[in-house]
């Protein structure tokens, strides 16, 4: 561990941040021991953030800017390559399709997770007998380890011995090669991901619904509003902040989904269900001869995408507060 670089960067960070914090209003000058104590309390979280967030991120950026081979990865001395790795990735014939898959995967997953989650949240908001039990059951996909749910899906969707094709056979429809045909593999992983994502949307939206005062519904009912009008006039606008955060978290989560796709199809056949996340892993670890540089470059592109989504959220959120 290069401990020297770590200490110096933190010192700079702190130095940069410190003067901005207490410049004008200094209500009471604390005594020295207090300050030491304050730093003592801050230290663990600072060290934690640096060791587990800042340093790995820095390493990832560094990996993506150098021409690493296995030899220079171990022996050191990889030459600085500027944006070469990014160029390699962007000009790769697989980049276009993979980016499209990532966008389709994310957009479709979010759309279905959100609508189904919303429908279920409204449904369970009615409080009918057994609603608690049923709601708890719907949370099961969330509790299962991903390796279990993804393996279960790949058994269900197996071309020859899968339950789904058997069920289709009973109705007289020809089986579909869910995981093994380039035309279907992306749809299959989206279906599995939607199933896994519904509980999260349900829980967050359901708790959002409970924060809406019931008097509003009563008042609108007296005014003769239909169910549909009540949804678009009251529920949807009042649920907007909750919906936004649900969608943003969903977006960040879905962009980096890797395990489900890797377990179900390995991004295949022939890259037809590969996303940026699986591609990055394949480059870095999926081959006997790792290509760390391009792999790290894709990882950084993913971070940038998530960051853009975060900024868009902050923008919308701020505009909402101003109104």
């Amino acid at each position: 561990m290069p401990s020297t670089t770590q200490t110096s960067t933190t010192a700079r960070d702190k130095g940069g941040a410190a003067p901005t914090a207490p410049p004008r209003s200094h209500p009471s000058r604390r005594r020295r021991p207090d300050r030491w104590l304050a730093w003592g309390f801050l230290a663990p979280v600072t060290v934690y953030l640096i060791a587990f967030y800042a340093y790995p991120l820095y390493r990832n950026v560094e990996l993506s800017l150098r021409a690493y081979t296995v030899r220079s990865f171990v022996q050191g001395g990889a030459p600085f390559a500027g944006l070469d790795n990014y160029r390699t990735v962007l000009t790769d014939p697989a980049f276009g399709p993979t980016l499209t898959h990532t966008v389709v995967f994310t957009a479709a997953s979010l759309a279905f997770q959100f609508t189904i989650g919303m429908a279920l949240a409204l449904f369970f908001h009615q409080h009918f007998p057994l609603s608690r039990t049923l709601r708890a059951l719907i949370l099961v996909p969330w509790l299962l380890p991903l390796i279990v749910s993804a393996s279960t899906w790949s058994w269900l969707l197996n071309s020859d011995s899968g339950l789904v094709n058997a069920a289709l056979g009973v109705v007289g429809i020809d089986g579909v090669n869910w995981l093994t045909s380039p035309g279907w593999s992306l749809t299959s992983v989206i279906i599995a991901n939607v199933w896994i994502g519904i509980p999260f949307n349900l829980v967050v939206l359901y708790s959002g619904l409970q924060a809406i005062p019931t008097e509003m519904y009563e008042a609108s009912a007296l005014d003769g509003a239909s169910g549909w009008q009540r949804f678009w006039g009251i529920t949807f606008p009042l649920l907007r902040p909750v919906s936004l955060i649900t969608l943003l978290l969903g977006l960040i989560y879905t962009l980096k989904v890797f395990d489900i796709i890797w377990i179900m199809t390995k991004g295949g056949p022939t890259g037809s269900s590969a996303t940026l996340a699986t591609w990055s892993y394949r480059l870095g670890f999926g081959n006997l001869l790792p290509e760390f540089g391009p792999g790290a470059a894709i990882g950084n592109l993913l971070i940038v995408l998530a960051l853009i989504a975060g900024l868009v959220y902050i923008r919308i959120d701020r505009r909402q507060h101003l109104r």
Partner: protein
Amino acid sequence: MTGPSRRRRLAAVAVIALAVAAGSACSSSADDPTDGGAYLVWDPYPQFADDSEWVALLKKCGTSAGVTVERTGYDTTDLTNKALLAAQQGNSPDVLIVDNPVISTLAEAGALTTTDDNKLDVSAMEKNLLGAGQSEGKTYGVPIGANTLALYYNKDLLTAAGVDPAAIKDWTSLNAALSTVKAKGKKGITFSAIGTEEGSFQFLPWFWGSGAQLTSLDSPQAVSALALWADWLKQGYAPNSVINNTQTTSWQEFATGNYAFAENGTWQLANAEKLGFSYGTIAIPASAGGPAPAPTGGEFVSIPVQKNTGRYDKSQQIVACLTSADNLLTTDTTLSYVAPVAAVQDRQAADPKLKVWVEAVRAAKGRTGDNLGTKYPKISESLWTAVQSALSGGKSPQEALRAAQAAASTR
């Protein structure tokens, strides 16, 4: 204003320096390689617990070299990355046992010692097995055992269908057998064509059996091998699920009893005994007859580079002990592997169940051999991609392999 902020800065530096120093102090004392300490052994056999015969053998070899051995078992796929990272951090184990195609990658990284440095004697090892650990005239490890692929068949099913497995000598007779089985309403053959190294491993016997070479992926012979597989799917001899099958899921399909043949490895022998039907094995036939060269699987024992070169001597003694004839027989029996030494192979071949396997290993080829070394991973990735696109119907075998050759030669 400057006073407090500077003090604050100093305080921050001091606290963090302390924390970092505390952290690095305990880590550096743990992995400081000094003489006399325990010798670390990493292996890809997590299935063996500390009370297993394998670990007992490791300890015994340590004791006879006069040192204690500390062993850690990792998952095979995990071990490559672990070994690379350890080499980067300068805390490699003293003895590293890895899957044979990984050797060329680690050697390229400069993480392994050669037999010139570590004085290991590899003269007894079979040349075709040792090939995977050699590059440019240097040898980077010793094979501890070998496995390879053959065709398991369901004896009951073939008898009922009236197929004689002994008559399967080439692709034509194999196709005839598959067609007969299918006509009886059973399934023909299952294998693994997944988009990873496993898929290439399974395709190679057919690829090499057609006379194709890894340096020319789009030769007419190579196309004929891929066309054979693609045709099996089209004719319904093989299930569509092979595109996503690992060797384990493919074995599970065979174990249902509905399949006549399964392409699988030596390591399934123990499971084969538990099947609900009687089974047999034949060598994978080459296109024109005779056994096809299958790729060698199995691990190599290597001695990673250490800062303290004084440790090589004891490491060498441990490895020599592990790969001595008697110990090889014990190890390879527990792993269901074929020994890498002719004399031990002869002893194993006395068992009729192992005879086919010993012959298959003798005909087998290393994947990274022929001086391909670190070119192999790229070739292999292009190859499994071509297999996947031909089997899923995306491209014809010809187009798929042409694209593969282009990808393998440009990157």
